[in-house]
């Protein structure tokens, strides 16, 4: 006898519940309200045993089951709790960042690591992300900056002409090795700072995480190519100074995202842009020219993101400007008793720009480095003014920036 052929039917054919038929059955039952009935038909050999066991585990009720040589026909009543997971579930924003209300002003810790736009079941264990306010982290440019960064990734193995000849003399090569040594420790710092904050930012701000993650990957690649360049003609690297490291340590321990981002990206990496383009101009070989150019292109994006999210933050919290200024002053005070830039680095920059050891060349090199320092200063002032600092304040703050450049 066929139990109630008028009922809506889910036909499982010969597919067993152990081979995917449970998916068809669950989908069919989910579309029904609690207490509604469905007819289930199938011809799998074990359906007679598996169907009641499955229904018991899922909270559905077998009203009637008929099994014979032709297969199994059953009436299943949809369980009272089948839709429980939808109760109190919340939509965690929208995936398209440009849509209205896509990004919450405050990301809910109960969304956890759910994709933005997901329907999040109630009862998720809250994850206390320290940076959960949109104003603290968001930049409308984040999606496009991430897309640019993803498209601009380069392969250190093929993007650099590693086999190009190096014909300059030993003193210039030593200078290049010293500069590369210095760049590695600075880029290591530039990797560690965003990495520290990555784990504190609510994943609701997906594009910000992506920008910072790719920023870390950029720095990892820079560390790689600068190290490889240094080792092309030398087995050991140059010096690392206590003063330089003291300056970098202040960045690594900075606990506030806005202040760390300001000191690192806007002031430090901004200053580094001038340095990398200076090295590009004066590089004695095509390998060095290529590594600093590729690094400079990446660093420009890092600076752009820092400026973008801080400009937005300041627009919503004007007092942040004073806090950022104090951060520069505090860092300056902390570093007053330190030597600042490694003297070996300064000399190396002069030598690289000089291209030789005769007095005329050294004179030109020294002048070029002085011009570099001026260029760094004007770049910093320009960026500070973009963030809303007055001309005078921008000049004063730029002068307080670390002598270590980063």
């Amino acid at each position, binding site marked *: 006898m066929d139990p109630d052929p008028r009922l809506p039917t889910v036909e499982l054919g010969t597919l067993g519940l152990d081979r995917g038929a449970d998916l068809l059955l669950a989908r069919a039952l989910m579309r029904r309200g609690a207490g509604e009935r469905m007819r289930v038909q199938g011809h799998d050999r074990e359906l007679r*045993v598996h169907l009641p066991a499955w229904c018991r585990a899922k*909270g559905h009720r077998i009203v009637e089951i008929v099994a014979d040589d032709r297969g199994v026909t059953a009436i299943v009543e949809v369980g009272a709790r089948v839709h429980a997971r939808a109760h109190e579930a919340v939509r965690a924003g929208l995936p398209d960042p440009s849509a209205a209300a896509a990004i919450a002003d405050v990301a809910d810790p109960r969304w956890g690591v759910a994709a933005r736009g997901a329907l999040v079941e109630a009862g998720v264990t809250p994850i206390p992300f320290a940076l959960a306010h949109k104003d603290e982290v968001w930049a409308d440019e984040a999606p496009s900056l991430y897309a640019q960064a993803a498209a601009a990734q380069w392969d250190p193995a093929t993007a650099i002409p590693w086999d190009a000849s190096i014909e300059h003399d030993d003193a210039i090569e030593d200078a290049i090795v010293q500069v590369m040594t210095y760049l590695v420790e600075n880029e290591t710092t530039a990797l560690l700072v965003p990495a520290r904050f990555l784990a504190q930012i609510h994943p609701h701000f997906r594009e910000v995480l992506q920008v910072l993650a790719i920023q870390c990957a950029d720095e990892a690649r820079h560390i790689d190519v600068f190290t490889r360049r240094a080792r092309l003609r030398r087995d050991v690297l140059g010096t690392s100074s206590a003063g330089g490291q003291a300056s970098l340590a202040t960045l690594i321990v900075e606990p506030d995202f806005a202040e760390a981002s300001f000191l690192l990206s806007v002031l430090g990496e901004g200053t580094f842009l001038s340095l990398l383009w200076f090295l590009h101009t004066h590089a004695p070989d095509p390998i060095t020219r290529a590594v600093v150019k590729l690094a400079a292109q990446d660093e420009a994006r890092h600076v752009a993101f820092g400026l973008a999210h801080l400009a937005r933050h300041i627009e919503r919290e004007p007092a942040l400007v004073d806090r950022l200024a104090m951060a520069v002053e505090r860092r300056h005070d902390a570093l007053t008793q330190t030597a600042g830039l490694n003297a070996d680095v300064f000399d190396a920059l002069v030598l690289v720009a000089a291209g030789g050891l005769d007095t005329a060349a050294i004179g030109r090199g020294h002048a070029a480095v002085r011009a570099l320092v001026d260029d760094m200063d004007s770049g910093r002032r320009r960026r500070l003014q973009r963030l809303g600092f007055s001309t005078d304040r921008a000049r004063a703050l730029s002068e307080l920036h670390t002598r270590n450049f980063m």
Partner: protein
Amino acid sequence: MTSSTLLLGAVAYDPKVVTIWEGFRTWFAEHGLDFDVVLFTNYERQVEAHARGHYDVAWNSPLAWLQLQRIAAKTGRQAHAIAMRDTDRDLTSVVVVRADSPVKTIAELRAKTIAVGAHDSPQATLIPLEHIAAVGLQPGRDVEIRYCDALVGKHGDHIGGERDAARALVAREVEAACMIDGNHLLFAKEGVLAPGSTRILTQTGKYDHCNFSVVGDPHREPIAKFRDLLLGMSYDDPQVRALMDLEGLRAWLPGRTSGYALLERAIDAFGTIDAFVGAVVGGQ
């Protein structure tokens, strides 16, 4: 502990037991019931402690329920099953052979080896072996039994024994294996049994599984409040839903004792709990 504390006995058959009862303890406290748990490593110790009045309610396996029921009866008391999971009702067990096995009937298992769960597993050993014995094949005499003793004393709550039995079947070390109907499906999902690689030779009748057991008046406080709260617990409540998922239920139902006949028949046939019941009663 105060006189109003409801003390529950449960067997820690898996680390998740701590998570489950700690979670329920918080929920009960929020609903005005001072609730605590004492965990045992085996059901025999739990039943004996219950018989001696060391705690109020036991979360008992079906075998522990029958142990308690018989001890209570022999000492002039009555045991009651006050609540159970919706998933504790109307289980069946299956005896499974490989799809290519020549064995078509239970009788053809004569002189063959059958893998079962732990010695004290109602679902993977006692009930299916009684089912086989009912058609004339005495375990140990007419069929050889391979016990898969994962954690004896836990009455088969840990499904490792059933899984080992299934693996022995796949490895062609045995001719048949016994397991709960739902675990036959589960083992296929897990990949322990390849879908379609086995055939259900026979299925037992329906039986019930765990229950919350008490000795004496089931309507006294705080037992009555515990039961009322339990039956009112809703799967719609996200606070307890994860715990209910861990414990494997959608709803708590009133206890019933009509579903233990098959297990009673098995333990009477095999004398499974006589010595234990006698020892506890003798020591009272």
